[in-house]
């Protein structure tokens, strides 16, 4: 989806404003949102790609206005309602529906550190051979899927060079739709800044993206 989340190359957001001695959380509710999202995720009703797409499909003006944890909160509600863990009415009233069954949480305190330490690797075994060799020239495809994709607009149609591959990884475009992991080679592709931004760019500068095989054509 060519959404407002696909920000690479936009201008007009003003300077970057670092904050001195920034705390991990600016208010306790931010940490609770992070924790709720993780604990609800332990029900395994969605995957990371679907979760990202849920944030991307927030109304665009809200996406720009909301803070990071506000977006997480809004998208968590979408996720748990969509997964049937809670109903919209329960979220609105703040109370379990009459007669609803009490569940047993899958994430207990003892499992927290093991789960955080394990993460969710996306590398998968494959028998396929990589289509592109290191150093090969490639062109990023001109695709404009309505759903989730990790091919940013600013490189589409542009020429780059394969730096290396990282083995086969879960493909977000299908995984986000629960259409399968479709693992395929993931490559680091180097683009000259001038290829992306024209002659105004410094000729020494490069931008590197990790792109799946399906995003690339030989050039």
């Amino acid at each position: 989806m060519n959404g407002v989340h696909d920000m690479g190359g936009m201008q007009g957001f003003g300077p970057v404003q670092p904050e001195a001695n920034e705390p991990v959380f600016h208010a306790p509710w931010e940490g609770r949102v992070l924790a709720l999202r993780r604990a609800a995720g332990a029900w395994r009703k969605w995957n990371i790609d679907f979760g990202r797409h849920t944030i991307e499909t927030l109304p665009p003006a809200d996406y720009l206005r909301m803070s990071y944890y506000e977006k997480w909160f809004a998208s968590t509600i979408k996720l748990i309602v969509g997964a049937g863990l809670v109903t919209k009415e329960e979220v609105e009233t703040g109370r379990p529906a009459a007669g609803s069954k009490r569940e047993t949480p899958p994430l207990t305190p003892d499992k927290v550190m093991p789960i955080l330490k394990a993460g969710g690797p996306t590398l998968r075994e494959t028998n396929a051979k990589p289509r592109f060799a290191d150093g090969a020239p490639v062109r990023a495809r001109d695709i404009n899927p309505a759903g989730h994709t990790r091919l940013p607009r600013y490189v589409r149609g542009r020429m780059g060079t394969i730096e290396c591959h990282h083995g086969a990884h879960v493909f977000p475009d299908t995984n986000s739709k629960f259409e399968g992991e479709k693992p395929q080679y993931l490559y680091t592709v180097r683009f000259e800044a001038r290829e992306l931004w024209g002659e105004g760019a410094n000729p020494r500068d490069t931008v590197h993206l990790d792109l799946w095989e399906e995003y690339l054509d030989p050039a």
Partner: protein
Amino acid sequence: MSHDHDDHGHDHDHGASDMALRVKALETLLIEKGLVDPAALDAIVEAYETQIGPRNGARVVARAWTDPDYKARLMSDATAAIAEMGFSGAQGEHMVVVENTPDTHNLVVCTLCSCYPWPVLGLPPVWYKSSAFRSRAVIDPRGVLRDFGLALPDEVAVRVWDSTAEIRYLVLPERPSGTENMNAEQLAGLVTRDSMVGTARVTA
């Protein structure tokens, strides 16, 4: 950029206290329904407040500066070398380390969301998640670095790493001169979070 709607400023304050109430209400609901365990929530928050943060990455960097064999392992298989130090997992499942040199400066961004190497750097700062950083880092990295007070000469190449997949990047900054007699622990104390994202250098 001027903002003509000062009267909308209240939205944010209103929003903040409102958010505390709404998050509390959702947490209460999920606990009552047995969907989440409040002690697990506490454990997650505590993990990111006390254990998973940029001191981890600083230790990796300091060891790479002082242990050539470790540095070689780190550059060839960062995930394994970082796991040696006890750091691994969510948002750092597949790590790559990129090294700054006198000729090359590396900068990490995620233009599509805010991907960041949590096991070594903790949760990302607000600026890393901001539209300003996400949008400009790829088209105007030198301007972004100037916002951080870092003016790079044209002769230094800038390599921007846009974290579009599940590979997470850690910048290995240059070891500052004048630190020849410092040990790894002392060096780790010099390494800032920003230097490992690429928006700062390490200074002695």
